[in-house]
């Protein structure tokens, strides 16, 4: 049958676009996937931090004379405070464990005057009066302090939000640049093959018939580029994910992505190819509409 044997009427194989468009798409997929992964990591981190910010406080009882008495008084006062879900005194070993990342295994052997810590979980939405709690704590256990992490966590949240918006801006800019490149490629293809396009038009080809040949060409190039981009993401992300596991520690969750995050990132190449196809279709249809 002629339909199977005849190649496309538009001979794209020699076009300059066939060389650079896959690279552009690959870069788009690579940068978008990385930016998206970064955004998701930050989003998850912000959520974790917010959780800590709103539901936990740490009471620090400084070392010194009558430490056990002051510790017992602080713990008793906390347990009697409404709005606290759980109050737990950290053992000396647990406190030393927190220092291990800085002092190493020697942390437990060193005879350092360490403060004692009480971890308290707040009832969500309980509206605990922290200022009042501070006053009562000072009265019950002089020198004890409450660290609600608010100061440094809120700074980090603002920074993370800023980085998220930066990632979104990168995604938008990269996407827009890639779409502009596709428009350029399609227009140059139309210019290069103008004679054939006009001829097909004159023998009664519908715009869709001509447009589909451009779309198929862009989709082919897009798929090639998307594959390259995805391979680049895997090559870069795999060692980063491995290294990130090393950050896991007491009270610190290793940065990582959930399955649905990976699924969304996996959709980036498909979205890029789809966007390329749609851009090509719109560009061709618009150009062909100028023919009588």
């Amino acid at each position, binding site marked *: *049958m*002629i*339909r199977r*044997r*005849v*190649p496309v*009427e538009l*001979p794209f194989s020699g076009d300059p676009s066939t060389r650079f468009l896959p690279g552009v798409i690959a870069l788009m997929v690579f940068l978008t996937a990385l930016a998206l992964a970064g955004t998701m990591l930050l989003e998850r981190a912000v959520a974790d931090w917010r959780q800590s910010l709103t539901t936990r406080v740490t009471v620090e009882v400084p070392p010194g004379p009558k430490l056990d008495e002051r510790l017992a008084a602080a713990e008793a006062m906390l347990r009697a405070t409404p709005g606290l879900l759980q109050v737990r005194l950290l053992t000396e070993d647990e406190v030393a464990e927190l220092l291990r990342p800085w002092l190493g295994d020697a942390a437990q052997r060193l005879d350092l005057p360490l403060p004692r810590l009480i971890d308290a979980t707040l009832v969500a939405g309980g509206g605990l009066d922290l200022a009042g709690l501070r006053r009562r704590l000072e009265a019950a256990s002089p020198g004890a302090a409450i660290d609600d992490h608010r100061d440094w966590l809120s700074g980090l949240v603002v920074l993370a939000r800023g980085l998220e918006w930066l990632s979104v801006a990168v995604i938008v800019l990269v996407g827009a640049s890639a779409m502009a490149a596709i428009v350029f490629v399609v227009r140059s293809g139309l210019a290069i093959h103008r*004679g*054939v396009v*006009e*001829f*097909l*038009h*004159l*023998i*009664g*080809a*519908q715009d869709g*018939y001509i447009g589909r040949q451009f779309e198929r060409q862009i989709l082919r190039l897009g798929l090639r580029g998307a594959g390259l981009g995805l391979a680049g993401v895997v090559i870069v992300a795999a060692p980063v994910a491995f290294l990130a596991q090393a950050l896991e520690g007491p009270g610190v969750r290793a940065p990582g992505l959930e399955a649905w995050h990976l699924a969304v990132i996996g959709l980036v190449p498909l979205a890029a190819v789809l966007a390329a196809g749609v851009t090509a279709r719109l560009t061709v249809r618009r150009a062909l*509409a100028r023919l*009588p």
Partner: protein
Amino acid sequence: MVVFENVAMRYEQGPVVLRDVNFHLREGSFHFLTGLSGAGKSSLLSLLYLAQLPTSGRVKLFGQDVASMPRTERPALRRKIGVVFQDFRLLDHLTAVENVALPLRVSGNDGPEAETHVRELLAWVGLADHVDARPRELSGGQQQRIAIARAVINRPLLLLADEPTGNVDDTTAARLMYLFEELNKMGTTVVLATHAELLIRRFDHPVLRLEAGTLAVDPAPRARGVA
């Protein structure tokens, strides 16, 4: 079949290339279209095969006003028209069979029987031994015949040929004219643009004569088409 009423045409903001053109071609007629270079022959043909629309006046093809009809309906109208371009416009990367089959592909009629039909037509124009050749491998006359085969593969109601004998020797020209007359006898309306007065005198058909953008019709003794 074809009606031109007070047709004028210009390319964008350029000078008027056709002015007040009026004629009527009946179905099954055969006309020569002639005139000096720059008289407007190609412009008139471009109106006939819908590459251009009139700047003013009315062009009706197969009973339809081409300017007022929806753009999406024009492709169907174009498929009723076969065109032999002066420069052939064959696609270099396709074989003779593939070039001739193009109008069938475009119209979605490239079923299993199409290739047989295409090969028969190529044999009819004397190219049975060159079906798989690419245009670059063929002479000008052979390319011309591929262009003719491609123009008639869809059994067009109207066949337009722009200087089809311009680049071939007298023998080939006579053979091509024989092909056009055969197609005309089968019911195809033919308009053949040519400079060749000898050809016009030799064959008995009415003449559309263009001079500086205006048209005059010279009826032939046994003219069949000009109203």
